[in-house]
């Protein structure tokens, strides 16, 4: 993992924390649905927070493809580029 990627992971992780009420440990493989068990409303709030933090738009179509934290980090990096 290069430095930029590691930074992006940390940034995404810090966005997850306020929504991580069960204190699930966050890794690249953590699944939003299976591990964090977020409902659709939490997902929506979280996406809005991520979008505003990184000044990007993650369409619902893209969201449907993102299951894990690692995939979100990839998407954020790509969208910021």
């Amino acid at each position, binding site marked *: 993992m290069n430095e930029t990627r590691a930074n992006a992971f940390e940034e995404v992780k810090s966005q997850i924390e306020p929504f991580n009420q069960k204190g699930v440990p966050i890794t690249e493989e953590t699944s939003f649905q299976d591990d964090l068990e977020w409902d659709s409303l939490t997902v929506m709030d979280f996406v*809005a927070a991520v979008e505003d933090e990184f000044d990007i738009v993650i369409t*619902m179509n893209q969201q449907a493809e993102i299951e894990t934290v690692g995939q979100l980090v990839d998407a954020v990096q790509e969208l910021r580029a």
Partner: protein
Amino acid sequence: MTEPGNQPDDPGEQATVTSRNLFDKFEPLMQERNRLLDSGIRDPFAIVMDEVKSPTEAIIDGRNTILLGTYNYMGMTFDPDVIAAGKDALDRFGSGTTGSRVLNGTYCGHMEVEQALKEFYAMDHAMVFSTGYQANLGIISTLAGKGDYVILDADSHASIYDGCFLGNAETVRFRHNNVENLAKRLERLPREAGKLVVLEGVYSMLGDIAPLDEMIPLAKQHGAMVLVDEAHSMGFFGENGRGVAEAQGVIDQVDFIIGTFSKSVGTVGGFCVSNHAKTEFLRLVCRPYTFTASLPPSVVATAATSIRKLMHAGDKRAHLWENSKRLHKGLRDLGFRLATDEAESAILAVLLDDQEQAVRMWQALLEHGLYVNMARPPATPSGVYLLRCSLCAEHSSEQVDEILAMFEAAGRATGAIG
């Protein structure tokens, strides 16, 4: 092969290859529902009206019931002129068209109702669909295809979301009624991409209205087309009853208004009105318009008559607003929590603590003789359980008093109010 006389109950058992049962995904919801019904509660989603006496009264479970959850805002369902027009059309044109609008399913009545809509909205083009759901589904999916963007409010109606999915557009949500949130998303989208901003005049779950006067100019500044769903405002918002966009003075900037015949108009059907001449071409490429049978002649006749009467319904309009304001204040004074500080529309949402309280309250009201809608997530925003009340211009002041008395009794019996 199964033995003769030994047929399994479940047809799935005959399969030789074990694959995942397609019903399995509903298992958690089914279980939740069964737990609720096992507690002895009346199923809130299986109400049968045995008799309908007027726009505001029906017989449910053998009991006289005031209807406060029908969207029949203007009470047109039993209007004598509307009924006469429907009967006449039934006699003259038969019970159905058995065909698509683009083949054998356009009768003079369909042209007449489209003409009535053009006059009602003072717009050049009108396209009538078989339901309001299909109007949103059809227009959104046809306008916004792959590579185009639809920007929508997170609390949008299912038909709007489904229109996005059907068209395979890039779909971007903004926080409910949040102008700044919309602005940020519009700024971030590619300049050259085609964009459609979809808004609703009244949001049906909480009965709140959109700041269209801020959002529509913003969308236009970013080069987007604007579609406004005015399903819950037709007939009683704005000087001519054209909706929230008219009331807020921005209707001239709206590209497409979507509406329905199943609320204020009092029958069934959906429509799109627009000043864009190319809207006419959509008839040939809009699948939910083309690949379905058109509305029956009696339905378009009742709709046309009702729409023309709604142009001159000032008294009804005033009484509907009076009912909504009185009920809002009355419920507040009783100690109920309402979704909006004031009555913003003809929908009032009473917020409850949880599912159990909502269902018990709903059932207590029904037993007192009052029907309201129970709504739960995900149809409602932010995980709220609520009882949705929608008023009718035909509710008398005495009925509003009765409604308040029933809310008080049910609220005290269930502990929803102190």
